[in-house]
């Protein structure tokens, strides 16, 4: 079951990350356990000179981000949760003519650590482009980041004055940066 509240929260988190705004990564679906993101087709990642390495490196960023976002689906309130490690298997080269989907799930949460898995696909989740597993450290209430928390929980509109307003559609930002 989709959960619009969690979806909005995940999107606010993505919008707070400068690099993710540049890539235009968006939440398409989220519930209490998993999130699905989409990376639209974009020229800045397309490579004309070689066919073998369409998105080298970019998949790593996508999986890292999606895994972090999946922890937001599970946590009752925003916590800073730095990545401990991440391992990715690449099954096939993605086609740059199609959007990429990343489905990430936080499948186990303990007091100190959260465990995630993520699948990158294009046509079907059963035909993965890449698969990644990650662990995140919970810092709990010992370390607080009030500003980031307020942004993710939707209590303040924007992170800083020089940040674009969150209601600005990602499409425009992507074009501006392309």
């Amino acid at each position: 079951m989709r959960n619009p509240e969690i979806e909005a929260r995940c999107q606010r988190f993505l919008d707070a990350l400068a690099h993710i705004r540049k890539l235009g990564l968006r939440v398409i679906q989220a519930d209490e356990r998993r999130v699905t993101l989409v990376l639209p087709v974009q020229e800045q990642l397309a490579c004309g000179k070689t066919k073998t390495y369409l998105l080298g490196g970019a998949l790593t960023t996508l999986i890292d981000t999606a895994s972090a976002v999946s922890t937001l689906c599970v946590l009752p309130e925003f916590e800073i949760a730095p990545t401990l490690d991440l391992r990715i298997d690449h099954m096939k080269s993605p086609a740059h003519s199609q959007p990429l989907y990343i489905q990430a799930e936080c499948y186990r949460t303990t007091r100190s650590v959260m465990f995630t898995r993520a699948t990158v696909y294009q046509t079907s989740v059963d035909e993965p482009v890449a698969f990644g597993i990650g662990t995140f450290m919970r810092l709990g209430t010992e370390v607080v980041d009030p500003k980031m928390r307020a942004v993710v929980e939707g209590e303040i509109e924007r992170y800083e004055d020089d940040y674009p307003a969150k209601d600005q559609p990602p499409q425009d930002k992507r074009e501006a940066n392309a």
Partner: protein
Amino acid sequence: MISITDMVAKAHASGDYNGLIELIPYAQVIGVNCERFGEEMVFRLPRNPDNLGNPTLPAIHGGVIAAFMELSAAFQVLLQTTTPELPKIIDFSVDYMRAGLDRDTFAMCQLERRGRRVTNCSVVAWQEKRTEPIATARAHFLVKPNES
């Protein structure tokens, strides 16, 4: 079209590796560059506001650090082998040790094993001191042997 083997030879001769970096679009998006010191290659990710994740610290997005390390490893394999194609990533694993702050990040790679088809590469990334890495990683690449 100029072959990859020729491009590598040209880059080694001139010391300008930008042409090779242009082969991988995401390396250009995040701004990877590299410099040769004798036999050693040092990869650099210059400070860039577009690479930030957490705006409070502010810190470089963890995924960008991992991608920088993966791309550094790919370039290292490309530069150290005579492969006619770009190395293809099989798997990649990264351990994060410290937050990557909003400043230049460096990486050095070591080919641990060069098999006939698969090459294993380890990567260390640091900012202030090489002895205080912000992350370590390792990767396997599928490398096409040079037929000639």
